[in-house]
Each structure stands twice: as structure tokens, then as C-alpha cells.
């Protein structure tokens, strides 16, 4: 049973009927979350309505780091066990994670202009998230720049694991160094310093983003698997492998 799930074809049979469900759930959660965060939630005592950017910015920041951990972990198992499923999952997740990182950077920039008075500064938090974005881009480019997919998977997996050291830097940058970005409100010791009426929409949005990720991952997994089959077919027709 355990080994069956490692077989990509078997996994596709399982996830195919699940995709409409995950799509439906993510749309419902997104609509509920947006209604709560843009309309129902209170304004902030300092930031006014600009605080609503948080409901997009913070969940996408969490997603960008979570998906990167997922890619690095899959790459690790891929390197050790050589399972196609692990490599393909990592490759399928990378563009989704890169998009969430881009959303995080762009929404953060749009939030920074009215609140801080600047679109961008080179402080430790902002710079380390930009580096995370470059790691995503590097991973995607690297995994596609070899004729032989398995070679690209190997090198890009090593890159993904190297990039893992960036994650604690992102997390603790606001505590170790003085930055323009404020310290964490929720993932810290003690009670979250965010009011419950704002925390609930934030968590709904986070849940919605998780479901969007799962939905896109299941679709992209099948796509990457077909890409891989095509690659093998092409290589056979060019005589690279027999």
C-alpha cells in the first residue's frame, strides 16, 4: 500500500477525481475569506483601511516559505530514494511558490508605500524574501535547462536544499537585526498581537491559499508527469537513450 503511492501513475488515478473538489473548496474559501477581510473585518487603529492588504500579504508570505520547505523536502527524498514522484511534486510546486512569493513582494510593496513611505528598502527581511524569489526562479530554470530531465532534477534538487538555509534567515531577520519591517505578530511566543476579528479572516485566507496550492499542485503534477513522458519520448526519437 505504501509503495503504491510512490508510483506516479497510481497517484494520478487517486488525485484526478479530487481536483474538482479542491477547486470548489478553494473558490468558496477564497470568497468567504475576501468577504471577511475586505468588508467584514474592522479597520486598524493606526493603519485604517490599508491594513486589509495584510490579508493577502501575510498568507502569501507563509505560503511562499511553506511551499519552499515542501520543495526542499521532496527534493531531499527524491535525491535519496530516486522516486520520480518526489521530483515531479517538487517541480510542480515551484511555479506556484514563485507566484506566491511574487504576490507577497508586490502586495508588501503596495503596503509599504502608504505606511512606511517607501516602495522598497534593502532591509534584512525584504532582501531575504527577494533572495527566496530568486531561489525559486533558479530552481525552475535549472530543472528545465538540461536535455535529460533526470540530470536537471538532480542539480535543481541540490539547489533547492541549499536554498533551505535562507528560510530561518527570513523568519528571524526581524528579530536579530533592526529592520524597517515589523516583528512577527502571530508565529511568536505568547499570545498573538492581533485582534481576534482580524485573526479569523487572516486564517480563512490562509486556508484558502492552502487549498489553492493543493488544487494547482494536483493539476500541475499531472502536467509535469506528461512533460516527463514527452521528454523520454523525445530523447528516444533523437537516439539519446534506447
Amino acid at each position, binding site marked *: 500500500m505504501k509503495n503504491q503511492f510512490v508510483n506516479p501513475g497510481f497517484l494520478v488515478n487517486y488525485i484526478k477525481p479530487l481536483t474538482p473538489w479542491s477547486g470548489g473548496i478553494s473558490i468558496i474559501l477564497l470568497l468567504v475569506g475576501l468577504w471577511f477581510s475586505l468588508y467584514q473585518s474592522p479597520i486598524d*487603529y493606526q493603519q485604517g483601511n490599508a491594513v486589509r492588504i495584510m490579508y493577502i500579504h501575510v498568507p502569501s508570505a507563509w505560503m511562499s516559505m511553506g511551499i519552499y520547505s515542501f520543495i526542499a523536502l521532496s527534493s531531499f527524498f527524491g535525491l535519496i530514494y530516486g522516486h520520480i514522484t518526489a521530483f515531479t511534486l517538487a517541480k510542480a510546486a515551484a511555479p506556484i511558490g514563485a507566484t506566491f512569493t511574487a504576490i507577497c513582494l508586490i502586495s508588501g510593496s503596495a503596503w509599504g508605500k502608504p505606511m512606511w513611505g517607501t516602495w522598497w528598502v534593502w532591509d534584512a527581511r525584504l532582501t531575504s524574501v527577494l533572495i527566496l524569489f530568486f531561489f525559486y526562479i533558479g530552481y525552475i530554470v535549472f530543472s528545465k535547462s538540461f536535455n535529460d530531465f533526470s540530470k536537471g532534477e538532480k542539480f535543481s534538487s541540490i539547489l533547492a536544499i541549499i536554498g533551505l538555509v535562507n528560510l530561518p534567515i527570513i523568519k528571524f531577520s526581524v528579530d536579530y537585526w533592526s*529592520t524597517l519591517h515589523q516583528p512577527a505578530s502571530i508565529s511568536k511566543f505568547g499570545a498573538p498581537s492581533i485582534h481576534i476579528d482580524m485573526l479569523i479572516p487572516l486564517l480563512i485566507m490562509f486556508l484558502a491559499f492552502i487549498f489553492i496550492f493543493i488544487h494547482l499542485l494536483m493539476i500541475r503534477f499531472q502536467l509535469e508527469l506528461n512533460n516527463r513522458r514527452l521528454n523520454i519520448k523525445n530523447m528516444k526519437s533523437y537516439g539519446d537513450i534506447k
Partner: protein
Amino acid sequence: MNKRQKKIITIFSLVAVLCFSLFLILYALRDNVIFFYSPSEVKIKVSNDEITNGSLIRLGGLVLENSFQRGEGKNVSFIITDLKSEINISYSGILPDLFREGQGVIAEGNIEIIKLKNKNNVLKKQLKFYASNVLAKHDENYMPPEVSEALGLEY
């Protein structure tokens, strides 16, 4: 040791070496990684001659209560404090929305060090900061205005 164990050890040692080298790099650059100095840090650095007259620095802290003064046109002056030491700031330009007394701000600009000799012929350094840009920090607390009023926070 089989091939799989060798791979695991290689990957873990790679990550360990990376972490260590990164730690050394960030430790060496710790002065450059921080985004701003506090007034106390600036005063220590001035007395050690690490910051010279006209240096471009970023200075961060709280705007001292009742220190904000409006001059002619866009000219303003205020004091940035870290509750230990204070530095006078003069600035000409647009202030961010969140700028108010008691708020955390970061001023970017040049520092002027005026050397004065007092009666006993002891050299004293007086600091003046000409900001070219002022950024507002906001804290990690989020709450509706009613709650902050109930808590007695100024808004």
C-alpha cells in the same frame, strides 16, 4: 555503509557547512545587515570616530513627545530617541501618514558633527542630523480603533 546512507550524510554535511559559512558571513557583516542605528549606537560610533562628519546613515527610534516643530514651508524638526539618548533631526519634505509623536521612525540622511571646546578645554561633540528621507515604522499590533481606545492608547 550503503549508497543511500552515503547520500544522506553528504546532503547533511553540505547543509551544515553552508549554515556555518553563512553564519560567519552574516556575523562579519552584522553592522551592514542592520537597517538603522539607534541614537545610542550613533553616539558610541561618533566617539569612536567610526562615523565621521557628513556620513550618510540611517537613524531609527521613537519621535520624542512634544519635540515636533514646524518651521517655514516644509521644514520640520523633531527629536529621535531610544529612551536613552536623543538626536535632533531637521527635515524638509513630505512625512509619511503614520508619522506622529511617539511613533517609531527611521530618518535617512547626513550627520553633522560640531566640535566644541568648553571652558576646561575639553572637546565636546554636538550632533545634528539632516534627514533627506523619513520612513515610518509600524508595530506588530493590529486592533480596531474601539479596542485601542478601550486600552487607552493614543491614536
